[in-house]
């Protein structure tokens, strides 16, 4: 008897959303660190806008991803995985999902508090949820930074675990997100 596909792996949509968001985070994170120390210039203003646009895009894709996942549950962990690893995996994934929303929202709120509205792609103005308040803006900057370094730590954890599954456990976990790997490696 053949097992049905959805329990084995992720759907193409889930894989595409995962990598799209990953790519955007890998752009936005270093960009955020780089731009903050730039001297005042048109280039700096542009980068700030691009950074915000990427953040809004991540937020929208995360929404789509959550909706998709609700309808298409993730495949179960490989059989025989220790309980602590299962718990760690669930915790990491939940936190990652949470941060996919929390990081853009903190940036958006910070922009509002600092008095610089976010205008998506320079066209669609996002409502300012907060009124201008310098102290609040500075506090939100700190929140945005802390959330981002938490996100970075979790991404490193996520990546390390994925590589461990591939190189140490030699199971199909990484291949579920990179289908090419499972196709090449006969099991």
């Amino acid at each position, binding site marked *: 008897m053949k097992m049905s596909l959805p329990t084995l792996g992720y759907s193409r949509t889930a894989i595409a959303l995962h990598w799209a968001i990953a790519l955007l985070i890998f752009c936005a994170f270093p960009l955020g660190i780089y731009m903050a120390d730039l001297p005042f210039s048109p280039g700096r203003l542009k980068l700030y806008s691009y950074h915000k646009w990427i953040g809004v895009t991540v937020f929208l894709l995360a929404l789509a991803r959550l909706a998709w996942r609700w309808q298409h549950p993730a495949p179960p962990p490989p059989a025989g995985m220790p309980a602590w690893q299962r718990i760690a995996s669930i915790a990491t994934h939940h936190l990652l999902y949470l941060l996919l929303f929390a990081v853009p929202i903190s940036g958006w709120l910070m922009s509002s508090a600092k008095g610089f509205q976010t205008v998506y792609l320079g066209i669609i*103005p996002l409502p300012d949820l907060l009124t201008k308040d310098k102290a609040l803006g500075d506090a939100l900057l700190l929140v945005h930074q802390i959330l981002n370094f938490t996100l970075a730590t979790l991404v490193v954890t996520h990546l390390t675990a994925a590589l461990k599954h591939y190189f140490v456990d030699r199971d199909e976990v990484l291949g579920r997100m990179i289908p090419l790997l499972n196709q090449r490696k006969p099991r």
Partner: protein
Amino acid sequence: MRKTAIALALGAALLSPFIAPALAQVDAAKSSVVAVSRQMGVPVEGKFRRFSAQVSFDPARPAEGKASLEIDIASFDLGDADFNRETAKKEWFDAAKFPKATFVTSAIKPAGPGKFDAAGKLTIKGKTLDVVAPVTYKAEGGQQVFEGVLPIKRLQFNIGEGEWKDTATVADDVQIKFRIVTAKK
């Protein structure tokens, strides 16, 4: 020599109420001059915190009306220390060299009920251009209220030189929103 100077000063002081009897000062708390620009599509509002104005206006006889406005450029506040430091620089307002911006009317014409067109000379950063500001007028509790939006092009006044000439980052169009309320008589 000194006596003459004193006499002249006294004379001027005594005469001044007669020379400009109708000139009203502004109610600073109720008046505002704000410049709105767009930066990467984001509206950015800057307030000129200090300015003075003299207005002499009778809506029945607009042609005889006149107004002048003097803005303290260093008081420009975008609400962000980085931005304020930047806009005072040579490339922008060059506040050290051009501390004042002025608007002086040359002709006021009616333009519909409660509306007037105030033509005049606008000087920013040492550059003077003829502009026409659309103004709405109303009288409120013994005070005269003049409101309007004057669109200008920042590059015509050399505001934003060098790399800042790029209008893709900071748009050329700037709106000067003003609300001038005369002091109670």
